[in-house]
C-alpha cells in the first residue's frame, strides 16, 4: 500500500535534506577527515595571526642561546620551546611565521589558480570544433612539461623570489586545473537535463550558471584541495632549492635548507619544518579525500 508508506527509515529522510547538509553528514562520519579539517582550520588561523601568536620576532636573535635544543632536552631552555637555530632565533616563532608563507601563500596560490582555472576550463569545455581542439592540444603540451620544471623556467625568466614563485606555481598548476574543470564541464554537458535546457532555448550563460555550476562546484573544491597540496609542496621545494623564498624569510622549505649544514649538530632545525610540512599536506589531503568519498557516498544514495 504505497500511500501509507510513511518515511520512517533514515535513508529516505536523509534524501529530504539539502545536498550540502548530506555532504556534511557523510563527511562527519569520517573521523580522520574531520581531524584533518580541524588541523586545516588551525593552520589557517595560525597563518593569519602568526605575528601575534609567535613569542618572539621572526629574526630576533638571542646571542646567549645559539643552537639550543628543544626544551624537553636536558640542555634545553624553557624560554625556547622548540630550541633555537645557529643565529639564536627561536625555532617556534620562525615556524609559526613560516605558516603564513608556506601555507598561507599556498592557499592564495590555489585560490588564484581556481579562479583562473575555472574561467578558462569552462571556456575550454564550452567551446567546440577547431578552437576546442587547439586549446586541448595546447593543454597537452603544457601538461607534458613537468610542473616543477615549468615553475623553474618561469623563475629563470622572472628571477628568484617568493612572489615570483607564486606566479610560477600558478602558471604551472593551471594546465592541470583547466584540464580537470574542462572534463567536469564536458561530462555535465552531455547529460540529459542539460540537453533539455538547450531544447528549452536556454542560452550558454543560463546553462552555465543554473545547470552546470551547481553540479560541479563541490568537485571544484576537491580539485582545489589537490592543487593546494601541490602548491604547498612546490613552494617549499622551490624554497628548499633556494629558488623561492630567500633567507631570512621564514618559509619552511627555506628554513630547512638554511639549517641543512647543521643536520648533525641540530637535527631538530631540519626535522621540525619537515614535520610541519608533512602534517599540513596530510591535513589538506585528508580533507580532500574525505570530501571525495563523501561526494561518492551521497551519489550512491
Amino acid at each position: 500500500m504505497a500511500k501509507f508508506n510513511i518515511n520512517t527509515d533514515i535513508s529516505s529522510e536523509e534524501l529530504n535534506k539539502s545536498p550540502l547538509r548530506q555532504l556534511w553528514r557523510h563527511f562527519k562520519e569520517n573521523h580522520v577527515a574531520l581531524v584533518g579539517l580541524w588541523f586545516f582550520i588551525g593552520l589557517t588561523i595560525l597563518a593569519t595571526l602568526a605575528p601575534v601568536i609567535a613569542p618572539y620576532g621572526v629574526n630576533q636573535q638571542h646571542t646567549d642561546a645559539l643552537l639550543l635544543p628543544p626544551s624537553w632536552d636536558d640542555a634545553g631552555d624553557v624560554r625556547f620551546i622548540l630550541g633555537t637555530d645557529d643565529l639564536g632565533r627561536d625555532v617556534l616563532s620562525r615556524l609559526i611565521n613560516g605558516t603564513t608563507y608556506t601555507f598561507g601563500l599556498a592557499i592564495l596560490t590555489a585560490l588564484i589558480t581556481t579562479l583562473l582555472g575555472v574561467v578558462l576550463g569552462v571556456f575550454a569545455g564550452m567551446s567546440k570544433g577547431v578552437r576546442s581542439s587547439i586549446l586541448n592540444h595546447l593543454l597537452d603540451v603544457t601538461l607534458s612539461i613537468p610542473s616543477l620544471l615549468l615553475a623553474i623556467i618561469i623563475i629563470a625568466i622572472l628571477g628568484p623570489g617568493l612572489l615570483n614563485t607564486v606566479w610560477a606555481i600558478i602558471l604551472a598548476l593551471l594546465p592541470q586545473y583547466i584540464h580537470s574543470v574542462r572534463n567536469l564541464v564536458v561530462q555535465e554537458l552531455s547529460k540529459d537535463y542539460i540537453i533539455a535546457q538547450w531544447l528549452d532555448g536556454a542560452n550558454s550563460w543560463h546553462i552555465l550558471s543554473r545547470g552546470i555550476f551547481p553540479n560541479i562546484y563541490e568537485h571544484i573544491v576537491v580539485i582545489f584541495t589537490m592543487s593546494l597540496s601541490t602548491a604547498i609542496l612546490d613552494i617549499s621545494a622551490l624554497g628548499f632549492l633556494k629558488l623561492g623564498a630567500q633567507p631570512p624569510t621564514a618559509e619552511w622549505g627555506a628554513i630547512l635548507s638554511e639549517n641543512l649544514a647543521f643536520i648533525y649538530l641540530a637535527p631538530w632545525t631540519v626535522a621540525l619544518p619537515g614535520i610541519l610540512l608533512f602534517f599540513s599536506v596530510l591535513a589538506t589531503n585528508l580533507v580532500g579525500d574525505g570530501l571525495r568519498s563523501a561526494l561518492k557516498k551521497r551519489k550512491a544514495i
Partner: protein
Amino acid sequence: MALEYIFRRIILLCFMLLLLSIFTFSLSFLFPGDPLNNLSGVQNISFHESDALSEKYKLGHSILTQYFSFIERISHGDWGISFASQEPIFDHIVALFPATLELALYALLASIIFGIPAGITSAAYYKKWPDKIINTLTLLGYSTPVFWLALLMIMFFCLQLGLLPMSGRVSLLYEIPDVTGFILIDILLSDVSYKFNAFIDAIKHLLLPTIVLSTYPTMVLIRFTRDSMLEVLEKNYIKTARAKGLSRSQLIFRHALRNALLPVIKQIGLQFSTLITLAMITEVIFSWPGIGRWLIDSIYQRDFPAIQGGLLAVSTFIILATVTADLMHSLFDPISRNQTHGKI
C-alpha cells in the same frame, strides 16, 4: 583502423613537438639579457664576432627565418654553448641524460613492482584491513615532501647507521669507463678486475635515490590500480562470474585483472613527467650527476642556453614517453581507439 589511429597520434606528436620548439625558441627572447648571448652562449661578444654570430643566428631577419634556422641548428645537434662551461650543451645533455634516465627507470620499475600488486590487494580486500592499511600508507606517502623524505633517509641510513653512501653514483675508488652512461651496464661491459665490488657499490649508491624517487609514483599507481580494479569489479560480467560461483582469486586473476590493468599502462607513461620533476630534487640532494642537478645549477649560474637546452631535451623525452604509452595502451585495448575518434 589501428594504422589510422597510429597516424593520428603521430600527427599529434608532431604538433606537440612543434609547439614545444616554438616555446623553447621564444625563451631566448624572454630570458633576461641579449638574445644573441642567450642563443649562442658566447658571453663577451666582441664587435666583429657580433656580426658573424648575428648572421649565423639570422638575428637581422624576420622572426620566421630565425625560427627555421633555430630548428635547423637543433636538428644538427648545435644547441649552443653553455655560459658556465663554454662547452657545447648537446654534449652535456648526452653525457648527463642517461644518469637521470637510469634513476628514473629503476624508480619506475620499483613503483610498478610494488604499486600494482598493492593496488590489486587493496581492491581485492576492499574496506577490509589490508585495504585500510594500504590506504593509510598511500595517504602518508602522498603527503611526504620528497626532499624531506630524502633527508630523513640520509639521516637514518647514512649518518646514524652508516650503511649506505649518501652521494654520487659509484665510489671514487672504482674507475668505470663511460660507454652507455648507464652505470650498471657500464660496469658489466667494462673488463676491470673489481667488477663485482664496483657493481655492489653502484647498487648501494642507487638504493636510496631509487627509494626516494619511487615513493610518489608508487602511491599514484596504488591508487590508480585500486580505483581501476574497483571499477571493473562493479561490471556486470564480473557479477555474472560471481553468480556462477567463481572464487575471489579466480574472479580477480582470470577476469578482472586484464581489464583493470589496461588504463594502468597509460598511467605508467604519464608517470615520467612526475618522475623527472622529482628526479631534479632527488639528484640535487644525492649529488647524482644527472640532468636535473645540472638544470638547477644552470639556474643558480643564470646559464640561459643550458636551461633552454635542458627543457627541450627533457620535455621531448616526456612527450615521446607519453605518446608511446598511449600507443601501447591503444594496441592492447581496441575500445579506446574508437572513443578518441574526432575528439580529444
